[in-house]
């Protein structure tokens, strides 16, 4: 199809994106904003399919909209359940309204200037002839990269060093989260319908993850999309109220977390010892080495994303034999969470928002 015939679709997508972004940002109801943000992510994924970026679209749908949304929603839910200390509520912001309005105007003008400059510079860049030297170099060297999907070639061969550091960023975030405290308590069973869905969905998700990992070499997919899908399977189990969600325990968990960066460094240093440059795969081996790195990275990405969703180090499980089958339940640490506590009425989500605001003070 030609570009002009897609113009209507383009217009619709762009209008929905801007509207969704605007409505997600306006207002004070946190839950509403998060849901709109997730919708924005899904429409963005559609826009990226339209712009012939299916790899990115998959990642955006799974990570940008899916897992980031799940993280934010879990935060909203938790905030709206906290018992409300009177002191925090009474301490509303006491900024002078005049100063606030001036500040709001100043920042708004600044952002408008920013949008204008960005757009102006972008218009100049788009008006000049497109820079095709780099994409040409990518396709010229695709043969030697070991994979035929150019995005995977860039991610895991030409710019593999970026991906290595990116996995280090993911690891850093989880280590930082671990240092802040234990995981949030688990969920109750969400009822038979969701349970049935989970039973059906989880194997499909695991299968899809394996497929995405494998297919990434020559078609849209790869370690990040696969890892996110695998993580989604665990998150679904968690939401269904299961205690065992596929995460290993103790030292094994640390090994899985470190696997992505570890495999990268091992391969890189191994090649260095063998007289090749760091991460300079010999072309006949490149495909295999990339798949090896991607497999380890998929597990590490899945584990770290799940741990980020749990919000801390999972509590150790005590295995006990119940009704003839092995059941694992978390050893209670700290205050036990009563089902009543969970089922109690939820204050409006906007209130949750204010509570976070107070904890944040004037920042």
């Amino acid at each position, binding site marked *: 199809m030609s570009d002009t015939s897609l113009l209507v679709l383009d217009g619709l997508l762009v209008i929905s994106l801007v509207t969704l972004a605007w409505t997600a940002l306006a207002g004070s109801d946190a839950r509403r904003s998060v849901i709109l943000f997730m919708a924005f992510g899904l429409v963005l994924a559609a826009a990226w399919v339209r712009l012939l970026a299916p790899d990115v679209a998959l990642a955006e749908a799974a990570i940008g909209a899916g897992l980031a949304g799940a993280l934010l929603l879990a935060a909203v839910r938790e905030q709206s359940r906290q018992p409300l200390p009177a002191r925090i509520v009474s301490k509303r912001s006491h900024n002078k309204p005049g100063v606030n309005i001036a500040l709001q105007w100043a920042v708004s003008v600044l952002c408008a200037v920013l949008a204008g400059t960005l757009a102006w510079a972008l218009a100049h860049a788009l008006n000049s002839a497109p820079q095709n030297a780099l994409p040409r170099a990518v396709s010229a060297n695709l043969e030697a990269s070991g994979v035929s999907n150019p995005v995977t070639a860039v991610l895991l061969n030409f710019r593999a060093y970026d991906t290595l550091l990116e996995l280090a960023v993911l690891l850093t975030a989880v280590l930082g989260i671990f240092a802040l405290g234990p995981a949030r308590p688990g969920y109750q069973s*969400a*009822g038979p*319908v*969701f349970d*049935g*869905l989970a039973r*059906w*969905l989880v194997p*499909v998700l695991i299968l899809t993850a394996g497929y995405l990992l494998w297919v990434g070499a020559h078609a849209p997919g790869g370690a990040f999309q696969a890892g996110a899908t695998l993580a989604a399977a665990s998150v679904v189990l968690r939401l269904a109220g299961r205690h065992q969600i596929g995460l290993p325990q103790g030292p094994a968990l640390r090994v899985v977390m470190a696997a992505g960066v570890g495999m990268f460094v091992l391969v890189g240093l191994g090649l260095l010892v063998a007289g090749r440059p760091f991460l300079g795969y010999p072309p006949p081996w490149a495909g295999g080495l990339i798949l090896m790195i991607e497999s380890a990275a998929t597990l590490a990405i899945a584990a770290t994303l799940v741990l980020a969703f749990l919000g801390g180090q999972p509590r150790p499980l005590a295995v006990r034999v119940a009704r003839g089958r092995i059941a694992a339940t978390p050893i209670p640490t700290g205050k036990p969470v009563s089902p009543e506590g969970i*089922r*109690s*009425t*939820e204050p409006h989500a906007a209130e949750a928002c204010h509570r976070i605001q107070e904890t944040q003070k004037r920042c």
Partner: protein
Amino acid sequence: MIDVLSALLVLAGVGFYLTGSIGLLRLPDLYSRLHALTKADNLGLGLLVAGLALHSQELLTVLKLLLIWLAVLAASAASAHLIARHARRQETTS
């Protein structure tokens, strides 16, 4: 002939989508909106998928389309159930 049928199916699907969206906007309470949304979207997507399947050349594509429909069916049924249950709990506790 097949083209006409396919176009009719797609159009019907779009019609259901439109009805569902109007229902979502106009109906008075959560349950009826949910009803409008899930029923219409499932049927709408089903007709859309059927129309596109008629249009496609390969069996694999047809299977993929069918899978999409089934996945959406399951997800929308489960989420409609969860939303409705949550709403009813809130009513009974408050």
